[in-house]
């Protein structure tokens, strides 16, 4: 598949850009943040996005989805990234729905995916337990009980966990934290007894929650895929979500970069535009190169999912390492080049830095993905 956008994809991009600029500009994120909105995104906007077919863009038609590819989903995510749009697309579609799509049984898929596509069900994935992404580092226990399992443990950094109708919880039925074997994924409804959800206010104004599971009881039918072989589901879900997150991050860094270049052209000091200073020009050109390289690998990684290529895991790590580094560079440089105004809350560029840093650490930073790449490559 060509890395150049097709006419249909260009059309989608234009539609997405217009829609998001109108309904979810950066000031919308600020509004949500400043009003301490309990949901953290606009349910109305999410319904509209569902009407456009985006909530189930990669889901099959039988579940009410648009049956398009990741190439298309990536376009929507990139545009969302440009305005820092707060939506549950990442948590619901990329994390939650993907787990069901890849390993859910008929009932799970039938009951939940159609509601996702309609924008009615919000999903989340509760995986992380420590301060760093380490997918097998799971201590949360799942003990077999009479009818199913009892879940006990703590989860952190669960995006949209505070509003999710159902959360996919990763727990361990055997083995020790760090081991790949022994994991299992369970669908836990929000009103489950023994589940305590605390929303955490994050630096980017978006949503994450901490989950406390005190013997939460779930039926056997709540398991997604084979109990004990949860990593076989988790790995491809994380690959897809990682690549999707990279597409969103690409939008964020591209926008922050473009805003910075236009600031360099208009802001005057010493009687001239600051963009005439070579010290800034060269750094801007380096950023341009990094953003272009990042775009190439994101486009290729999205297409790799659609083409079912065997190198998806490797590409997910190449893309995430790259985008993490680019987000770090561009986020920091954008603020520095905006000077004093760049560190004020009033100027929007700071919001891009904050979002870039959250994206960098979500699902593993560059160091994590370099180590993973080496392990996957056998050295």
């Amino acid at each position, binding site marked *: 598949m060509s890395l*150049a956008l097709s006419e249909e994809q260009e059309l989608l991009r234009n539609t997405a850009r217009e829609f998001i600029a109108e309904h979810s500009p950066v000031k919308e994120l600020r509004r949500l943040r400043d009003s301490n909105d309990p949901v953290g995104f606009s349910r109305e906007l999410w319904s509209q996005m569902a009407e456009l077919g985006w909530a189930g863009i990669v889901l099959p038609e039988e579940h009410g989805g648009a049956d398009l590819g990741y190439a298309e989903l990536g376009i929507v995510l990139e545009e969302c990234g440009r305005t820092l749009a707060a939506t549950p697309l990442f948590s619901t579609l990329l994390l939650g729905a993907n787990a069901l799509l890849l390993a859910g049984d008929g009932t799970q898929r039938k009951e939940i995916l159609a509601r996702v596509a309609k924008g009615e069900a919000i999903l989340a994935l509760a995986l992380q337990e420590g301060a760093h992404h380490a997918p097998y580092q799971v201590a949360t226990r799942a003990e077999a009980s009479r009818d199913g399992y009892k879940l006990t443990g703590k989860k952190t950094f669960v995006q949209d966990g505070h509003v999710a109708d159902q959360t996919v919880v990763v727990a361990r039925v055997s083995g020790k934290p760090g081991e790949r074997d022994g994991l299992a994924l369970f669908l836990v409804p929000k009103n489950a007894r023994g589940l305590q959800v605390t929303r955490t206010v994050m630096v980017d104004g978006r949503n994450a929650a901490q989950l406390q599971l005190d013997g939460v009881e779930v039926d056997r039918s709540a398991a997604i895929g084979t109990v004990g072989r949860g990593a076989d589901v988790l790995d491809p879900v994380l690959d897809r979500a990682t690549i999707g997150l990279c597409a969103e991050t690409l939008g964020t860094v591209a926008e922050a970069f473009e805003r910075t270049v236009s600031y360099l052209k208009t802001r005057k000091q010493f009687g001239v535009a600051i*963009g005439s200073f070579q010290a800034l020009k*060269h750094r801007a050109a380096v950023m*341009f190169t990094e953003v272009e390289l990042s775009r190439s*690998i994101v486009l290729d990684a999205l297409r790799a999912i659609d083409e079912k290529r065997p190198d998806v895991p490797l590409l997910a790590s190449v893309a995430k390492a790259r985008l993490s580094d680019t987000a770090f560079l561009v986020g920091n440089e954008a603020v520095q080049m905006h000077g004093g105004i760049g560190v004020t809350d009033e100027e929007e560029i700071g919001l891009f830095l904050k979002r870039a840093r959250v994206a960098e650490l979500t699902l593993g930073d560059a160091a994590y993905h370099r180590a993973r790449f080496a392990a996957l490559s056998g*050295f």
Partner: protein
Amino acid sequence: MENPDTFRADVAKWLEENCPPSMRKPMGSEEEANWGGRRKQYANPEEKLWLDRMAARGWTCPTWPKEYGGGGLTAAQARVLADELRKIRARPPLISFGITMLGPVLLEYGNEEQKREHLPKIVRGEIRWCQGYSEPGAGSDLAGLQTRAEDKGDHYLVNGQKIWTSYANYADWIFCLVRTDPNAAKHDGISFLLFDMESPGVSVSPIKLISGSSPFCQTFFQDVKVPKKNLVGVKNGGWTIAKKLLQHEREMIGGMGFGLAASGGGATMEQLAKEYCGDDSGRIADPVIRSEVVQHLMDQRVFATTVRRSVEEAKAGQGPGAASSMFKLYGTEMNKRRYELLVKILGSQALGWEGSGFSPRELATTREWLRSKGNSIEGGTSEVQLNIIAKRVLGLPD
């Protein structure tokens, strides 16, 4: 238009029958690629045969028009040819600055007589060209060049000095930037001249580099007579041609970094890292080196993907433009990082100069590392490329 599958099958069949066996294996470190030229000594008759057969079809310059000796292939067909050559690991039958730099410029700016005279000889590898651009006082400030060409009625009289003239000591002809109007603004008084390196008054002396070799020369012109028909384009209008040619050069050097990085010379970087830094049950034992090797492999992959995207976007009429500066910048900087990392991996075994104690591969790496330092200087420094991106792509003010 011919069916693409038929074309591919025909190409494969022809290559199978015509590419000599010795031209289907990687070159040894002491072998040199075929640059052609009047003074080319063929160590191996198959090397000559391979060139002649490919040149007869115009496939040394596959996309050039047939009337000038080229292959007359479309870009898509040329890619098929390149694919098929790669499949049988064929050596390039000919590489030259004529193919990568002068030819495209002559096709665009040369007159009919110049095209008919020079292009077929480039295709056949009869004439080896060198580039007379840089001068001692004008490196990055290329337009500051001083070599002058005075109009003497039926000829130009050329006087001056060039530097960094790659392989001038092996070249037959030179394409050269000269000042034809010393009173005009510096970009407006430059012309583009072609002349024979055997013309009286031309002399060449190689420059030894820190790597110990001397691909570059200083070239001197003293009262060199150049026929007027050898002026390409219009008099004093050479800067436009010069810029276009630099773009071809940047693409070539950027692509070279990529090609080198892809070749690897036998062992992969991760194998070398295990060998020299320790192997911990299949893992590179040193975690820092391991991470740096990964980072480099990722850079290569991302760069290759970007080159591919650029081609595909250009076909679709999209893309960022001025990509050649980005590729020159990134390709050469990446190549330098590659050699720095190799030196780090080989440790003191990367510091040998000659004699015993070092393998040929180690000695070659040392010299390639030093040679790579020139990559981000030749063909426009990295700083010049950054300026071009800032100005032409980002539109930042002067």
